[in-house]
């Protein structure tokens, strides 16, 4: 039972990061009808922006590093929307997919040229100390990572349900034409959506960098793949559904690692995806018609 609880906690930590990155994918896909394959690399840029701030100003601490990650990722996300997504909006979905994939490749390899292809040490902004919660033992860094992601997920849920712009975001996701006819500036909301998703990814990335103590130019691949699977498994109708699936996939991976084998961990998400696509091709929580 202790192993189960420990793996459950570990899974929630990793799953919360999947959920944040997956929400970024889902926001772009539902609101802009864009599969933003640069999103995982914006996550990576946020991680390095935080690293830079953490190295240059270690006395300013974790919060300032988070802000730097959000600003760095947000700036790249904004430039991506202005330079690639907006000019291609309304055209075939493959065009934006290829455009964002190209930007992603440039970001990955550009960063690899700057910092090298190997992992770079992340400043130890949070002590490695363990905290015992009953039979579960988590590090301070795990708790910080989980807290940041949970705050982001709660915040985005409040945004889409409790604010005027959030309601407009959902309105565009469901019926963009009607939303425009009722006074919603669709282009403005699209810009903000990419900015928001990118800043969230940047914040989560910094907490992941601190958690593992390293940053890597190709780290976006791992999180991007899992997050994309989360969106496909959940469907894009409910953002909260994407969050739940992100957390669930994290937990399932941790349980597979704990009870079966760590080498099967990454396969678990793909098995889930295949099962869901077979039985519920629109995702567990349904999808908007494209």
């Amino acid at each position, binding site marked *: 039972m202790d192993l189960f609880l420990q793996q459950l906690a570990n899974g929630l930590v990793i799953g919360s990061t999947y959920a944040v990155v997956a929400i970024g994918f889902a926001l772009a896909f539902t609101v802009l009808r864009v599969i933003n394959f640069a999103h995982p690399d914006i996550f990576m840029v946020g991680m390095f922006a935080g690293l830079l701030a953490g190295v240059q100003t270690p006395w300013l601490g974790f919060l300032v590093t988070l802000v730097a990650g959000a600003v760095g990722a947000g700036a790249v996300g904004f430039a991506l929307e202005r330079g690639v997504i907006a000019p291609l909006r309304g055209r075939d979905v493959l065009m934006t997919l290829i455009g964002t994939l190209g930007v992603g490749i440039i970001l990955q390899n550009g960063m690899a040229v700057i910092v090298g292809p190997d992992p770079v040490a992340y400043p130890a902004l949070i002590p490695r100390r363990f905290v015992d919660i009953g039979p579960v033992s988590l590090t301070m860094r795990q708790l910080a990572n989980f807290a940041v992601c949970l705050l982001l997920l709660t915040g985005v849920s409040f945004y889409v349900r409790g604010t005027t712009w959030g309601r407009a975001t959902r*309105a565009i996701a469901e019926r963009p034409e009607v939303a425009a006819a009722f*006074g919603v500036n669709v282009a403005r909301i699209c810009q903000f959506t990419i900015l928001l998703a990118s800043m969230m990814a940047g914040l989560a990335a910094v907490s992941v960098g601190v958690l593992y103590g390293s940053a890597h130019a190709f780290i976006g691949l791992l999180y991007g793949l899992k997050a994309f699977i989360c969106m496909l498994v959940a469907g894009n109708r409910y953002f909260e559904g994407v969050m739940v699936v992100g957390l669930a996939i994290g937990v399932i991976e941790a349980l597979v690692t704990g009870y079966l084998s760590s080498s099967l961990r990454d396969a678990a998400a793909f098995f889930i995806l295949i099962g869901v696509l077979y039985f519920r091709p629109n995702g567990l929580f349904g999808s908007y018609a494209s």
Partner: protein
Amino acid sequence: MSALLAIEDLSVSYGVVPAVRNVSLEIEKGELRVILGANGAGKTTILKALLGLLRAKSGRIAFEGGQDLLQLKPHEIHRLGIAWVPEGRQLWNTLTVLDNLRLGGFGDMDKAAVERRIKEMLERFPRLGERRHQVAGSLSGGEQQMVAIARALVAAPKLLLMDEPSLGLAPLVVRDVFALVEEINGMGISILMVEQNAHQALRVASWVYLLENGEIVESGPAREIGSKERVREVFLGGHA
């Protein structure tokens, strides 16, 4: 006095296929005019061009004698005081009734006025008041039509565009919807409606345009148009 809305020589195409050809029509303040036409005649295309949702090939649409609507974006057109009741309701089905109404007033900066109008709508339609926290997709067709109309009225429009408000509704509900249309027009809101239900449309309209294959082939007072042989045969099943 200039018309509230004046469409001049509007042409719209889907690719190379013309959908609307040289349509001209106008509506005065407080009037209720109807565009009558069969499926595919181009009725919805005219409304969508007017709302900025479709790019016109040529023409001009003046609202209150001012700027050409064809040069504006949809949200800018909405701000001028034009609201839409789309064909098939097209509510945001995953949002609550209340959220649908709130989005009706999205473009209005005076949020207190929006909330006041929402309250008025919920009082005017008590069934919606009871179901305001329910998602719109769970309502019946008639209730959804009420939400669609209330959503448009929350925008406090000067001109209401109604796209086949009777479509897919039971006959008793259709009667209620047209009674509501008359009531809204009685409040001084101008209405441009496109319809296939000629019986009801001819009863409530002051002026009717007959649209065939994207062109206006007849126009005139509703009573006069209703008595034309062509209209009686095509739209009224041979009855006056």
